[in-house]
């Protein structure tokens, strides 16, 4: 039996987006797959990945005093580290560019670590994630995070096999109130208008508001803004669902309206149709919902996608399209002529590399360049013959470094002899 370890210490959404990698490893013959996650996400990981052995550690900083942290690290984490150290992993996929991940890698022979490794006190990053860092300034043509993490394994499963095709489950509409980054979420008045229009069109009998306890008040504000008939059918569940409740609820819906959130990825995992609002730093080609049957409303002002860490100097102009009354009309008619300026409606599609999105309203000026980039990446990952585009040399010069060519240690993937 071969043991594989994936270290994913990031957040809710990232955990779900690791699915293609984990599913690929699980699909290998005679494989036992292990997942190291933050302790707070272990119950969710257990629900999403029932066939994977979990190794929870305390990595996130929420709510721990200094004293509690010391105990969590030196006693609880240490026990988890001891168990990890006892297992003879064939490969360790250490996914996050974080000091914590590098330190955790110190447990393992660096030769066995892909991603973020630790060798005699030195942090090392392997080629695939370092390439991804280089295309991070080319976000408009970027690839989906699920496919990026899946790309650690050249034998990754087909993208269609990652999540079930989305279809309504009969349980009404779910609405995610906000993501972690407030600028990427819709203000309550706009959200309430979109919700009301969607609920009326679909004649949903049940609407649920989803989020953490900190979003409960926002949920109440939204409720007040809804027409009375819809308000009566709406329940504010913000802060009232544990992971099991959330999985059950999201898995029962006909549709989820959401910004770019972990709940959105959970819906995609469960095959619940997503209608996602992407604006500000959220860019659907990077973190859009994975699977067939999802819709993304992507703001496309010239300043996008921006960096969430930098303040917006343009008055969050990317919100205007969502506030435009014609957007409500578009949601009702799905006619391209009703699509407001500064937005594209995309439907999820697959290509040979993985998840992509095709415009159903609005023009995607980057589509051609993105398609060429995706072929370039696919060729890199699999060696698949896909021809050479006019942009391949440019991509190669941007994405590869001289040292990749000159000083790269030959990997098992490229070794000829």
């Amino acid at each position: 039996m071969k043991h594989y370890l994936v270290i994913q210490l990031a957040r809710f959404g990232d955990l779900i987006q690791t699915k293609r990698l984990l599913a690929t490893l699980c699909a290998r013959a005679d494989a036992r797959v292990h997942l190291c996650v933050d302790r707070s996400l272990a119950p969710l990981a257990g629900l999403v990945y029932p066939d994977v052995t979990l190794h929870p550690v305390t990595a996130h900083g929420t709510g721990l005093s200094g004293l509690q942290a010391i105990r969590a690290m030196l006693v609880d984490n240490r026990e988890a580290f001891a168990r990890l150290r006892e297992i003879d992993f064939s490969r360790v996929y250490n996914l996050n560019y974080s000091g914590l991940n590098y330190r955790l890698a110190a447990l393992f022979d660096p030769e066995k670590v892909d991603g973020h490794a630790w060798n005699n006190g030195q942090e090392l990053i392997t080629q695939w994630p370092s390439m991804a860092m280089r295309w991070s300034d080319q976000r408009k043509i970027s690839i989906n995070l699920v496919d990026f993490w899946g790309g650690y394994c050249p034998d990754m499963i087909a993208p269609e096999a990652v999540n079930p095709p989305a279809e309504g489950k009969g349980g009404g509409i779910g609405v995610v109130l906000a993501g972690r980054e407030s600028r990427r979420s819709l203000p309550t008045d706009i959200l309430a208008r979109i919700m009301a229009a969607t609920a009326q069109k679909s004649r949903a009998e049940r609407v649920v508001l989803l989020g953490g306890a900190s979003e409960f008040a926002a949920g109440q504000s939204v409720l007040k803004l809804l027409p009375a008939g819809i308000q009566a059918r709406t329940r504010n569940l913000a802060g009232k669902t544990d992971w099991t409740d959330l999985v059950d609820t999201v898995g029962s819906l006909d549709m989820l309206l959401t910004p770019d959130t972990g709940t959105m990825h959970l819906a995609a995992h469960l095959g619940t149709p997503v209608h996602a609002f992407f604006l500000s730093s959220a860019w659907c080609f990077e973190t859009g919902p994975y699977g067939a049957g999802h819709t993304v409303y992507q703001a496309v002002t010239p300043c996008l996608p921006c960096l969430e860490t930098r303040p917006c100097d343009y008055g969050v102009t990317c919100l205007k399209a969502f506030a435009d009354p014609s957007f409500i009309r578009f949601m009702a008619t799905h006619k391209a002529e009703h699509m407001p300026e500064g937005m594209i409606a995309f439907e999820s599609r697959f290509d040979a590399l993985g998840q992509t999105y095709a415009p159903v309203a609005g023009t995607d000026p980057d589509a051609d360049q993105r398609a060429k980039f995706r072929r370039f990446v696919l060729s890199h990952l699999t060696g698949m013959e896909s021809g050479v585009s006019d942009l391949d040399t440019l991509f190669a010069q941007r994405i590869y470094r001289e040292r990749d060519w000159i000083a790269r240690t030959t990997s098992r993937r490229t070794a000829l002899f």
Partner: protein
Amino acid sequence: MKNLRILVVLPLYGGSLPIGRYAASALKSLGHMVEVFEAPDFNGAYESLKNLRVTGDRLDYLQNSFLNVVSQSVLAKVETFEPDLVLAMAQAPLNHQALKRLRRDGVTTAMWFVEDHRLFTYWKSFAPFYDIFAVIQKEPFISELGKIGQPNALYLPLAALPEFHRPMSLTPVEQRKFGSEVSFMGAGYPNRRAAFRELVNHDFKLWGTEWEGDHVLEPLVQMRGARVTPEECVKIFNATRINLNLHSSVQARELVTHGDFVNPRTFELAACGAFQLVDRRTLLDEAFADGELATFDSMEELLEKIDYFLEKQEECAEIANKGRERVLKDHTYQTRMAALLDFTAERIEGWPSQGNDESLFGADYPPELEGELRQLLGRLSLPEDVSFKDLVWSLRQQEGALTDLDTAILFLDEWQKLYAKRS
């Protein structure tokens, strides 16, 4: 003085390289957290540039560029290790730009210039860029340093490392290989070549490099003139009845030059409890008293004393023992490094900074871990009052996969950087 974090920057190669290693070892034994910049690892690549057969200006450009990369590597190490002191040995690969950057960033730097300032004159360019400049010669060098803008010059003679330079029992095979009545271990400088031609009638062995081309001496050269390791040196010192110690000179007119500084071999031989005949130096008398060393002033005196001491084994042993006692008392690298740090504290205001490094056992660690943490400190040769920051660095210096406890401590450190300090 609190335990300090010290980065020792070794040269690419050369005579100050072993001394840098001894200094680092001594600083560790004084309880400081020491990180060593292994510049010799870069030397092969640097030397390979000289085999390119390109124009001189191109080679010059390439060498400068390469040394700039090495300098930047030192700076990167400083940024990560955050030392209280950067101790550079003579010829350390720190260019002007790097030294300016260290000064701008408030990093205290010291150079131990273990060279003859008359022959190795590059100090005029670099000395003002260091905060402390330790030298092995006195006047006029110290005044000259003052004139070019280096007010913090310290006379810091060479020394021995008693853990390494020590009396040693040799096997019969080793005694045969390394032993002789008279020997010299060192490079074939012109004054030595001329002087040692007069010793060919003795049971005399010559060790070291740069002896080729002298048909009189060549039959005496051991190991075909190969470089002798420091470990082999100690065996030669221990196996020889009379170790010659003639300070080098690039001219052969005067064989005994009566120069000022005392070479490292003087201290190393004495620390080994080995008998030596050393040429008299102007700075020798303040290092050793009468009866602690046997000296000579001329070739005639050297030849006479070789004959005399070959007959006086007990007297040799008595002098050697006294010499060893004196070195252990006053001339170890530990005493030198302590003197350097004291001088730095005296001259550099506010140094060392009183950081708020918390002692490991001052923190509220789970009591069940105390025994294991103490074992860990023992394994890493760290004092019990070590700070958490120093423990983390010491763990980082370990090679290979780490234990679960080691990893948990590194993880805790990183977590605190991410979250605790932010809150």
